[in-house]
């Protein structure tokens, strides 16, 4: 063992320098040319800055709701509910969410509610909802904001993100972008 101790310490020191140091600095330097100098993609609207990829809490009836979150969209302590599929407390929470949604959206029939609107995402920061989840909120918002429904439908399809290259993955709506566009309709 003795003959290995010194090389082990020396190699570890060089590795520390190269992998924690040089590698990090290279990635950092090249990232300076990316969005917002590597500090995360942002959207600037009405003089305010938002992180594009970090989902926001939308519970106000005049906006399209975002998904429920186990951490209340706290982007400094993210996380999921970690509830098992048969957990009775969890199933009660979901039922309550459905009831609340129906109270706020009396025109929607229950069997149209998609599950992503009543379940929490993995990190609690999901920036998206499904297209169906946006569509069923149209009636509520149209009534509250006195905007014709077809206008809102069009807004949704404009803000729908297609699958990657058109054929890989899911179709979804970016809630923040949709709501920013909604605020600009007047």
């Amino acid at each position: 063992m003795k003959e290995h101790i010194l090389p082990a310490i020396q190699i570890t020191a060089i590795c520390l320098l190269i992998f924690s140091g040089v590698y990090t600095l290279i990635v950092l330097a090249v990232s300076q040319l990316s969005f917002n100098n590597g500090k995360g993609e942002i959207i600037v609207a009405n003089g305010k800055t938002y992180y594009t990829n970090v989902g926001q809490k939308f519970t106000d009836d005049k906006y399209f709701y975002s998904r429920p979150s186990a951490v209340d969209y706290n982007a400094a302590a993210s996380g999921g509910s970690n509830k098992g599929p048969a957990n009775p407390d969890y199933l009660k929470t979901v039922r309550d969410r459905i009831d609340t949604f129906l109270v706020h959206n009396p025109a929607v029939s229950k069997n149209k509610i998609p599950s992503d609107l009543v379940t929490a995402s993995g990190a609690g920061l999901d920036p998206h909802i499904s297209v169906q989840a946006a569509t069923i909120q149209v009636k509520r918002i149209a009534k509250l904001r006195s905007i014709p429904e077809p206008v809102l439908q069009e807004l949704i399809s404009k803000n729908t993100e297609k699958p990657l290259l058109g054929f890989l993955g899911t179709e979804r709506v970016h809630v923040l972008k949709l709501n920013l566009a909604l605020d600009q309709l007047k």
Partner: protein
Amino acid sequence: MNTEILGIVGMYSIVLLLAIPFGKYIGKVFINEKTWADLFFNPLDKIFYKLGGINPAKAMNWKQHLMALLTINLIWFLLAMLVLTNMSWLPLNPDGNPSMSGDLAFNTAVSFITNTNLQHYSGETGLSYFGQLTLMLWQFISAACGIAIAAVVFFAMKERTTEKLGNFYFLFVRTCTRILLPLALTVALLLAYNGVPMTFEGKDTITNLQGDTVRVSRGPVAAFVAIKQLGTNGGGFYGPNSTHPLENPNYFTNMVETISIFLIPIAMVFALGFVLKKRKLAWMIFGVMTVGFILLLVPTITNEMKGNPAIAKMGITQPLGSMEGKEVRFGPAASAYWAINTTVTSNGSVNAMHDSLTPLSGMNTLLGMMVNCFYGGVGVGFLNFYIFIILAVFISGLMVGRTPEFLGKKIEAREMKIAMIIALLHPLLILAGTAIASYLYAHNPTAYASWLNNPGFHGFSEMLYEFTSSSANNGSGFEGLGDNTPFWNIACGVVMLLARYLPIIGPVAIAGSLAAKKYIPESAGTLKTDTATFGLMVFAVIVIVAALSFFPALALGPIAEYFSLY
């Protein structure tokens, strides 16, 4: 076809197309064959050899290899403990995060040096950037350590009689610089240019559109995530790992990160074929691994896309599938694919919360870790598979009444004893650990109430998963488990240590002792090991030894939960 399924087919096709040529490149790195990259890497490696004071040409026998590996790992453990318990006053701590307690530091240090990356802390609040960057060091070097020792076993399988199996440091350094570094740089930049942050600034404070004030954690994420995926490490920068939209912002980054999980584990199989000049053997191994992988994958995707029956009963619709703990931008299919990728290799990163998977999917992730060699962790996955090959050779030998031979070497009592001990160690650690934890909980549910986040069968699965993940050196979790307690920190730490080093020592000892034996040329009576028949035999051994020993435990957890739900 459904775009979600096409996404998965795309990911597997790309990784296979990359892994075959990359495996050949890894083989060249091991046997020191010239490549175009030498121009750049030779000077870099010389720095290591010179400052490290090592002679890369000095061949070692298997005992010297193990000594070198264990010594350097001990140094790593001490250094990790030192950093983790002193982060609060060390530099690069803009958010003022605290140092770790002794038991948590022990767990985390062991977790990262053993390539497990089990995390009983949450990255945003539990580590400084200095802590993150030093943990990233082990994501490189613990992976390189596993790959280097697998190369030693490759050398030992060659058709000759020798004790000299190359130089450990030579293999280790070249793996770091020529395999991991260029891949990590590529992936890190792909991620950084697609929305993953790379900055040393602390938390930002913003006001959201609705008017609430939120703080947003940032950090040098891109560099960290790249090597976490590539080295089957899996420890996330943020608490919820690659479900976090800054760690994995869109479907493209998700594809890059998923492909990174499988790339080296699959390439290692083809590297073996190249080093030994036995391509058929490599395809046999690849075939067995792939069949196992697909058998776990298909039901998992089906179940997740079908959704949760308890939610279906409430009368709402599940057009995407089971969405609890999942992200809309990936969808259940890509999350199910990742879940199996990450558990059959010992990666352990997640892009959906495994605790919220439907019961049979949860069981398949557990089975992936229980078998732990369908592709497996970088390097060590092959070592686990090697044990099953030895067992299969021996059993087939008995069945046809011949002396069991593998690649021209006789397998005798000594090798078999080691192989059996290693094969049984994994079930022993998992089942004994879970039994102790269940006993404690069952006898004093009030004192340990904070352990479990779910009642009943699922609560049992949370404990079973934690020990399985520790023993498989995987690192994912049913994260509802309240695991930052002295019991879990120490128990999982000990399991990780035993489950990392004994399954390295065992196969290296077997391979070393076989390499020193007389080479018997192949004859008409030799059992062929590169055929589909033998592949079936290996698969049967895996199913009987690995999967069935866990059946009673699975019946108490996910299987019972399944029948309570459907």
